[in-house]
């Protein structure tokens, strides 16, 4: 089989897998948060709610696609796709097990971070094209926030790169065979914490979800979308969260390293990613959100200096220990 065809099939399988996982992760989140709130999540649709995501997807597909009258048609209609594309594209670079990854680029992390930052374009397109002041306000806040938090996010993600000496995601995992980076004294734990905080903000998760603040801006830039376009945007958001959870598990929690045969690594990896996701969800459902100016203050005055210092510390440690491998 020609490699191009093989890659195409692999990409198709991955895409469907991602969509399936993301849909069921929404159910996991709903059950998890329901238990935290003394209630049961979805229960009646299928045994213990297992068919709920499918019911939701079907419902969204059948909904009327309402397009606001004075919206900028091309921008409005293309925004969900422009938002979805980067969020799903990054899954291509993640190695799920040794050798089981779509494209283990040797600039994997750079590709991931760069492409995931492109979602802002789709977001702003949605906010602008909706012809809605709430959406516009939310989009402006979003651009502010995501750009501000991408910097600490990148610096936190670079700490494992410095410690391992490679940008290739598979290489970072292999370098953790001696010990996960989160167990690294001080730099590992603080780096993981900084990564989580930056991830919360770059994903617009509470406490940093000011841009979709349901109680003020009623769904933010998504407010004018309904039906399948809304489904695409939801999918993109959750896919992005899962992607960064996978990245966090990869960078700090050892990726597919774990006891057992090689192919079990994919299972360990998914479990670790879900653990990161549940941790993020736990934070999300415990805190109130903070205002946008406070969010920006935290980013520029706290998180950025901290991650820079950690990165420098990591660099010093590596240089002191005689340097890591070639970049």
């Amino acid at each position, binding site marked *: 089989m020609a490699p191009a065809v093989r890659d195409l099939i692999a990409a198709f399988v991955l895409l469907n897998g991602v969509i399936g996982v993301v849909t069921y992760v929404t159910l996991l989140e709903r059950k998890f*948060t329901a238990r*935290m*709130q*003394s*209630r049961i999540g979805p229960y009646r649709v299928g045994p213990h709610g297992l068919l709920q995501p499918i019911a939701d997807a079907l419902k969204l597909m059948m909904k009327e696609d309402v397009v606001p009258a004075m919206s900028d048609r091309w921008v409005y209609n293309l925004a969900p796709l422009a938002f979805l594309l980067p969020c799903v594209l990054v899954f291509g670079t993640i190695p799920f097990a040794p050798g089981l990854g779509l494209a283990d680029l040797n600039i994997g992390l750079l590709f991931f971070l760069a492409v995931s930052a492109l979602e802002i374009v789709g977001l702003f397109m949605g906010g602008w094209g909706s012809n809605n*002041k*709430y959406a516009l*306000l939310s989009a402006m*806040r979003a651009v502010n926030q995501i750009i501000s938090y991408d910097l600490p996010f990148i610096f936190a993600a670079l700490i494992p790169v410095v410690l391992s000496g490679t940008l290739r995601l598979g290489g970072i995992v292999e370098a953790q065979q001696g010990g996960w980076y989160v167990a690294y004294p001080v730099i590992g734990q603080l780096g993981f914490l900084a990564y989580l905080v930056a991830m919360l903000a770059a994903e617009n998760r*509470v*406490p940093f*979800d*000011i841009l*979709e*603040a*349901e*109680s*003020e801006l*009623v769904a933010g830039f998504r407010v004018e979308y309904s039906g399948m376009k809304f489904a695409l945007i939801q999918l993109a958001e959750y896919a992005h969260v899962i992607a960064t959870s996978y990245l966090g598990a990869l960078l700090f929690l050892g990726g597919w390293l774990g006891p057992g045969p090689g192919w079990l690594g994919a299972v360990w990896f998914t479990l670790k990613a879900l653990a990161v996701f549940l941790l993020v969800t736990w934070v*999300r*459902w*415990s*805190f*109130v*959100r*903070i*205002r*946008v*100016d*406070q969010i920006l203050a935290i980013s520029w005055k706290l998180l950025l200096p901290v991650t820079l210092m950690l990165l420098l510390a990591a660099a010093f440690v590596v240089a002191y220990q005689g340097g890591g491998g070639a970049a």
Partner: protein
Amino acid sequence: MPDLEARKVIELGYAGNERLVMNMGPQHPSAHGVFRAILTLEGETVVGVDAVIGYLHRCHEKLGETLTYVQYPSIASKTDYVAAMTSELAYVLAAEKIGQIEVPKRAQYLRVIAAELQRIASHCLWLGTWCMDMGGALGGGATLFLYCFRERETLLDLFEALTGARLLYGFHQVGGTRYDLPAGWAERCRSTVDLIEKRIDEYEAMLEGNAFFLARTREVGVISRELAQEVGVSGPLIRGSGIAYDIRRVEPYSSYEAFDFKVPVETGGDCWARYRVRMVEFRESIGIVRQALEGLPPGPISSRPGVKSVGQVRIGKGETYARVEGPRGEVGCYLVADGSAKPYRMKWRGASFSNLAVLPHIVPGHKVADVVAIMGSVDPVFGEVDR
């Protein structure tokens, strides 16, 4: 009514330097009811608030003229539907004042128990909805919202065992109360308030030191002492601004003078101060309920016979103003009686109506996100505002 000419300018937009006019419309997840606030924004900062009310007007004051003294207490619950007991109490107190009708001691204690339990339930709702406004329906706010409602449900179960209804009771009648305690209710009440006291500790643990919560509520929506007195706010708003004014102390009604409770006062005037006032009120109300249950005297629950017909209660000529300390502030009823079975005129002083008047003074200068925090700490209920 705002100046129509100025209104036109605002609605055409762009009055100067790139101002955006945004409508936090009557359909809004955190409008606390149906409330329209036309915000004028410069970027993220609010520079003007134009409040529009009246979406929930149901002609209560006209109903007061067409319904008799026997029928209206059930309807009075619907003004402040979150704290129904205190609304009914204001009306029957006014009628009893004019008619010089004495209320037996047991009925007074029962009224106190009902009013204080209602205050706890109302504050549970306040805390839940406020945190939900600030934290989002899909976020930590919803968690606290569901916890508060879980506690409120236990209180509503108590009311259900007492009257049969969960939200709108019809508990008060002119001359006393309509229901007496069923068997085992006092024990159940005690264990419920014990549970709630423990849960309030949990909420405080969740919110007190929380830097996010502090950042959202400190220095936000400061009502200065002078402004509070000028505008005529009442309840936790005025006590959060340093003035110790509680109608249960100033003009005790229904034997409140027999109870020992603290009136919490904070001087900050911001959302945090009002939060602290209400959290202390939680505990004080629990204390009052315990004292009332302990000292509940035996006896009749009404000085008038049971209601047998619609025109049974006739109040002689006179007019008076009776007020109670509701969870939101001073709820007052001005009643003009003319000797028949119906009042000649009845006017409600809604606590939330007067409290909302403070919004155009304290909101400008804050960000959009603060508007919901301030609205939540003012805690309006639009049944009271629009009547």
